[in-house]
């Protein structure tokens, strides 16, 4: 793996790419501690969530269309089009499904993603 791990405040953050590497309203995928994580940029924010689409079981969420539902920022799976709340990973079409999310920080134009999913989040399986 070529990614560089940064130790900031003792917390394990990973520097994945520059903000401008992601075109607004699109996503990319990063490999973080062996996990595939979708990094998604909206107009003014960056979110990180598991890249595994729980419905198709393909690692593709980062390639979905980004938008909103009643103001909730969301991404649609490119395979069967279910949508997920970018902030919480909650599937908006099925209350029982949720993908893990990671904390994100932007510092000096770089996107830093926490190596571990937010506590309590399922490892998408």
């Amino acid at each position, binding site marked *: 793996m070529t990614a560089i791990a940064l130790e900031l405040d003792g917390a394990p953050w990973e520097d994945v790419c520059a903000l401008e590497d992601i075109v607004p309203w699109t996503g990319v995928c990063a490999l973080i501690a062996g996990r595939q994580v979708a990094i998604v940029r909206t107009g003014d924010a960056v979110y990180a969530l598991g890249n595994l689409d729980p419905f198709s079981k393909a690692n593709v969420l980062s390639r979905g269309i980004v*938008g*909103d539902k009643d103001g909730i920022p969301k991404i649609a799976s490119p395979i069967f089009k279910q949508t997920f709340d970018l902030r919480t990973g909650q599937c908006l*079409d099925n209350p029982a499904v949720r993908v893990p999310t990671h904390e994100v920080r932007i510092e000096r134009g770089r996107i830093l993603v926490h190596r571990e999913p937010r506590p309590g989040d399922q490892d998408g399986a």
Partner: protein
Amino acid sequence: MTKKQLVVVGNGMVGHRFLELLLESGESERWNVVTFCEEPRLAYDRVNLTNFLGGKSPAELSLVGPRRYEDAGVTVHLGDRAAVIDRQCKRVLSAEGRRIPYDVLVLATGSAPFVPPIPGRDAWGCFVYRTIDDLKRIRLWAAQIQTGVVIGGGLLGLEAANALTHMGLETHVVEFAPRLMAMQIDEGGAQILRSKIEALGVSVHTGKNTTRIVSRGGRVTEIRFADGGVLAAEMVVFSAGISARDELARNAGLEVGERGGIVVDERCRTSDPDILAIGECASYRGRTYGLVGPGYQMARTAVSTLAGGDDRLGVFDMSTKLKLMGVEVASFGDAHGTLPGARVVAFSDAVSGVYKKLVLSSDRQRLLGGVLVGEASSYGQLLSLTQSKAALPPQPEQLILPRLEGGAALPGVDALPDAATICTCQNVGKGVICKAIRSQDLTSVGAVKAATTAGTGCGSCVPLLGELLAREMKRAGKKVSRDLCEHFPHPRQELFHLLRVHGVRSFDELIGKHGRGTGCEICKPAVASMLSSTWNEHVLEDRHLGLQDTNDRFLANIQRDGSYSVVPRVPGGEITPDQLIALGWIARKHCLYSKITGAQRVDLFGARLEQLPQIWRDLVAAGFESGHAYGKALRTVKSCVGSTWCRFGVQDSVSFAIRLENRYKGLRAPHKLKSAVSGCARECAEAQGKDFGVIATEKGYNLYLCGNGGMKPQHAQLFATDLDEDTLIRYLDRFLMFYVRTADRLQRTAAWFNNLEGGIEYLRQVLIDDSLGICAELESDMARIVDSYRCEWKATIEDPVKLARFRTFVNSPEPDPSLVRVPQRAQHRPATWEEKQLHLVPQEAE
């Protein structure tokens, strides 16, 4: 006559059946028979193993009559394991030190339970469930504890769980997959099965990835899951599948299958003609068979092979019916509906706990398979319908629907009972959907999906949802909204008009002026299409990138595992030998599965995201252009060979097809566009099934419009006759642009036509007589598109900014490790989720 020596390794169900058949056939006269039996007892009925816990003695379970082998002169080495096959000297060395020569060797070593590599799995209190001795150990242990956990929610796991409850334990079943019995039954069936099993006091935990088994003082105390969950356990029984015992054969250098098992041909011969393999240890046609039926069939074939007969293995029926904890479960034929064109009807009743599903052939004439849970009395009848391929009654769903009062049901959604499942993927019934529409005042299919989850799987029920919605809304006296989505209070046609009239060139501008919010997966691709068919800018420009569906975004077709397929354009289907060689060469170089498509060209499957640019560099270098198989755009103009070679051809249909394809390639439309040109009335190019079709006549060409193949085939309408090429193209320019402007999103020309008041006569007035005075505009719009055409892929590989987007990971050059391939018919296919889960293929690292 000196007898030859036959050695049989393994005296399980199949090894024993083989010996019986051999003795019966008289063939045993020619052989000196020796068998190794690793277990301390001769073959017994493993299928009914659980009865041992119910009180049956090993003697009652035994399959071998007293003195049967002795009397027949079969030498048995009981409790001795064959350890090595020495093929050079043709002898078997055993664990006890025996050296037994053979002329022919038969391997019937069965399988071993698969124990997932979970740390701690060796603790005391961890068991498998395969032999009488395993069950003795389990029984002894169970006597001192209260709670037991079975890892594996498949057929065997549930059987083991049943046994634990009978021993008085508080029982849990842990399954990695999201549902029980994923191999045999589907989601709908699994839900019913689960609720029934839970009602019997077994706790079911699905979607749980066990990561550690914790022990204290060597004894298991709890198991932990990837999601942080913990389950107390004093006993763990692994029942997570089986793996063939092919180690003897493997070490002897015999061919073994990709997914394990000793490879045999249809006569049960391994790669060494003096060695046969039968039963669960054998891999036939790329897989092993965990049921006794196929094993018995192999035993018969192997005896025939020994006797010089020509019995051959056929297709194995993997149908099963069993009673799990008193719940009937049956799965037969193509239970998952994986055969091409398979259709599904299902019925589910959560109250009485019954689920029934039939898989039908595309014409609904034959039964291909099915699943029954909770009530399986019709299993025999349905299985026989499947196997006999008998014609079905006109409404096959009647076979599983409960009889309605007052005679036969009527077709259509209205006729379905409220209990009928509408969405099989999510198992949602009609009653639930109608109730949600009424009580939550739903007014769009999207809202119905969100409220009920129906329609969020394969999508095949969405038209039914639309029907139900329209029906309910009509009942409530409401109008169905035609707004594009929540972000645009306009139908597509109005938006298109606004976009053209105001010269809008980006989504941001359009939503800023005429919409609200930030857009979604419905309006973005629709607007992308409108922008493209108006201004024809490259779809991967930064400001258009986020609007594209994944196929357009990566200029390739996404496949079920997240890899892509590549379809180069072959205008008119005419291809030179050199182009064919180039395609083959490129497919081989990049290790792509290749297939001739249904539209006269070649599809190359299995490309990883980061491979696409190099594949296209190679294709562009060989003179190919993008085929737009990924876009809602012109696909192909099929041709027949026409007057170029054919004795009946009256026009040069190939040249004209190529001219049309090159004119309209790259045109983005509300939906895909397909076309064909036939050289005479015999119509070999099937032009009347296309969005626009051309059929040659003595005097020119007839033009047909608005046909469709696919889900709802529709004949095209004859629009004008005996046209010359240029006039026909002028009409087509007008027709296509009129469709592009006025159709709904994702509406093919046929559906659009069906909603046009005035039909084909109206189309003639607009496009020939110019009744709306827009023909000149339509033509110049088309001219602009034609003039600005550039191959999207050629432009992409020349642009480093666009190229940078074609990588799997933004921070690593590694390929996606979850893309796993399985060999199939001399090529390969993606591994299924089940195969990955059941460890039938190499797994990505956890």
